[in-house]
């Protein structure tokens, strides 16, 4: 059981679907959505939300600053 649980909120309309967050995520939480946003991009989303530890790696590498990261201690 993880000590921390996390979650991300993606600004779907501003996400360009570059996928850098997908590879940056150490716990394989994120994937690109099969759906597209208004600009036609497959935006990032939490495919495995339970695995998120709130480390913010995705937010750090995001070029468009569209990811907010939340983290809570669940011990």
């Amino acid at each position: 059981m993880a000590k921390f649980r996390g979650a991300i909120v993606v600004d779907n309309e501003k996400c360009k679907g570059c996928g850098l967050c997908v590879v940056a995520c150490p716990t394989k939480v994120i994937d690109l959505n099969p759906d597209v946003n208004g600009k036609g991009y497959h935006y990032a989303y939490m495919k495995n939300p339970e695995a998120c530890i709130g480390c913010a790696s995705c937010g750090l590498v995001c070029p468009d600053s569209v990811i907010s990261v939340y983290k809570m201690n669940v011990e």
Partner: protein
Amino acid sequence: MIDIQDIIKPENLVYEKSSLLTDNVMHYCPGCTHGVVHKLVAEVIEELGIQEQTIGVSPVGCSVFAYNYIDIDWAEAAHGRAPAVATGISRLHPEKYVFTYQGDGDLASIGCGEIMHACNRGENIVVIFINNAIYGMTGGQMAPTTLLGQVTATTPYGRDAKLNGFPMKITELIAQLDGTCYVTRQSADTPGAVRKTKNALKKAFQNTRLQKGTSFVEVVSTCNSGWKVTPVEANNWMRENMFKKYPLGDIKDI
């Protein structure tokens, strides 16, 4: 079982967009390193509390519109002339934090003279140098930092030293100049690298506060559109090829 909505609460927020970034959607291609570095510059200015004292100088190239994204006063310079413009601003506003944000074509090619002399005079400015080994805005032509063999729009058979000369390690040249106090080369491809680059930028702006001279931060970057690969592949290509020619780390820190 914890519901996601229980996590997404203001008290649990650990990372969000800097308040110094405007709401304008960046014009950069998906995965472009410019966005990451813009964010870091905004975060550093915000954390140092120097928004009211900072003036940026944007270049010609993809980042010409940097002024649309970071909420500070900006001057947009002619190609390569940002260090001269920054000199004028800094000399007349010696108490301000003045920085240039330049790409490899702007800084190492058309503005080679201006950057050398601004650094040699030790202008009390920060220089942020984005090296992605290609001209982005004009459509992927050869830059002074383009690697040997690298295919660009003007080196369609790969850069040939006989025809095009050699990749230019301008940051090493800059480090030789007595006016510079801090010269470093970083990247922004992993969370760890992003943190290091942010620390480098913070140190650079703190050097301005200490009136130490020119701080020069190169960020080895990607241009996935120009390189014609995906953003993730671009990072891989950069690590395999660019880092060999342009090794990361501090070159000078006094």
